[in-house]
């Protein structure tokens, strides 16, 4: 069923006029060139930071010779490692939960008519349009009110008192990520052919089976795009996070922001390079496994 969707529209299918053929060739080349240039644009600064992670100078913008010492000192730098760990934990948890909740929200908004739908539709954009610093300040006030109420209610004080920290950071990241995931998944749902679902149901599949077998595979690209967005937003968020975190709850962006007064430490370049390498390895690794399994299942 899903295979039918992506029948490749090879050029041979259609009688082609000569001008169209030229247009097609030209178009394909332009597309490829655009992609190459865009990737170059995206990776130019990345290349710079990778190179600088091996530069034997703390401040200078010149090449002073190759060194691995930043990687060595990174392993000693507890605060950067700690912040990296915090960032990854928050990003993965908030992405996982926000992707589920955001997709659910998107389904509700696109598949149901209910009272207050339009109002909620607008409210869903609030996390996206609210300037970060405003979100940060207002959440700080909000958490301070609720947490002090809770502390009073349960008579907590000193070390046992509830305060802002990684938990509030994660809760906040989930909140804005839900909005982003929902918006992206809805894009997919809007272009969605309901006829496929109806066909499945006509064939006797119940709602759940229809969802799992038909809807989910079809909106998977949207969910993936949403999840990637969410992960990126969470990993990179500085302003809001600064306001809603607490003792020991610094994330990587906060750590980095503190370092730029003197210089972006080459250790930060080193940690970025390691994260890049792991991400790329992850992608390539899963591709390789996929290919191998693909070969096996073909046999």
């Amino acid at each position, binding site marked *: 069923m899903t295979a039918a969707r*992506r*029948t*490749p*529209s090879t050029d041979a299918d*259609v009688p082609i006029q000569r001008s*169209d053929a030229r*247009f097609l060739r030209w178009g394909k080349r332009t*597309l*490829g060139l*655009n*992609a190459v240039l865009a990737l170059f*644009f*995206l990776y*130019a*600064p*990345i290349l*710079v*930071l990778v190179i*600088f992670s091996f530069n034997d100078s703390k401040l200078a*913008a010149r090449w002073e010779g190759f060194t691995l010492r930043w990687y060595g000192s990174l392993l000693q730098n507890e605060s950067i490692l700690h912040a990296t760990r915090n960032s990854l934990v928050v990003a993965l948890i908030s992405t996982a939960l926000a992707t589920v909740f955001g997709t659910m929200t998107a*389904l*509700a908004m696109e598949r149901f008519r209910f009272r207050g739908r*339009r109002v909620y*539709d607008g*409210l*869903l*954009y*609030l996390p996206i*349009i*609210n*300037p970060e*610093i*405003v979100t940060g300040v*207002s959440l700080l006030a909000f958490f301070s009110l609720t947490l002090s109420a809770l502390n009073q209610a349960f008579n907590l004080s000193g070390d046992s008192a509830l305060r802002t920290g990684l938990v509030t950071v994660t809760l906040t990241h*989930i*909140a804005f990520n*839900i*909005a*982003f995931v929902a*918006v*992206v998944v809805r*894009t997919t749902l809007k*272009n969605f052919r309901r006829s496929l679902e109806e066909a499945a149901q006509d064939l006797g599949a119940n709602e759940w089976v229809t969802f799992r077998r038909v809807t989910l595979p*079809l909106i998977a690209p949207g969910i993936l*795009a*949403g999840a*990637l*967005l969410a992960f*990126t937003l969470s990993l*990179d968020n*500085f302003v809001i996070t600064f306001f809603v975190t607490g003792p020991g709850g610094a994330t*990587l*962006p906060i750590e*980095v922001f503190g370092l730029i007064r003197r210089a*972006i430490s080459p250790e930060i370049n080193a940690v*970025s390079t390691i*994260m890049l390498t792991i*991400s790329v390895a992850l992608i390539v690794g899963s591709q390789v496994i*996929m*290919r191998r399994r693909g070969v096996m299942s073909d046999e």
Partner: protein
Amino acid sequence: MEKRRKLVLSALLLPGALWIVLLYVAPSILIVIYSFLTRQMGGGVIWAFSLDAYQKLFSYNPDSRFINDFVVIFLRTFWWGLLTTFICLAVGYPLAFFITRQKAGTRAVLLFLIIIPFWTNFLVRTYAWKFILNNNGLINVILSSLGFRRIPMINTPFAVIIGLVYGALPFMVLPLYAALDNFNYRYVEAAQDLGASYLTVFRKVFWPLTLPGVVTGSLLVFILTIGQFVVPVILGGGKVSMIGNLLAQQFGMAFDWPFGSAIAVVFILLMMIGIVYYIRVEARKEASS
């Protein structure tokens, strides 16, 4: 059956709504309240009603090119936002199209390749751009070693736009990818069978059907861009403000939380008007189809 539907609907809505209402709607109400209170030296607010913030925001300043300096900053921010959105769309649309035309495996790899640079740190990336664009930076060093004159790029609007586009590009590509990937190429074939040229097919079939992705991507890019305040500082030399800088100043050194809140309220209202309009149009389209 109706009851079951309701149950499903509430189950789908509840977690998202809980988060949004608790962590966004409630604090936003707080901001609206702040905007009508009195400023306090040292930050925070004094709980006494005041319209000072709004009066300041809409006061007339004869020295300024427009009503006052705040409006100038709003207009510049929106202009840069539009420019960035346009560039991102021009680059991102063909890029997303290119990706969706690849095999499943390549597709996923390309998608990840586009997002992975953004898993480094925002500041680190922006500083890397600074290194490239500096007076003694990569480009200028290459230019001068080839015997050309150096071009001042850093601390100009050009550098700011580069930084803004860089930061926003994936937010255009991902929604476009989501929209394009779901595209049914049968429509294109059908149109071609009817003898339509590629341009016509694009204009009449392709573009309209990918419009939701275009709208979402543009919205995300525009909104995220106009909220920026680090890029104009690092790549623009902090010479001119965007709304984000203005806000940061009010909640920071100026200790004027009510004024900052008022700016935010007006800003959010402006954006909401746009979004409500979009929702209306969408609703009308749905009703007609």
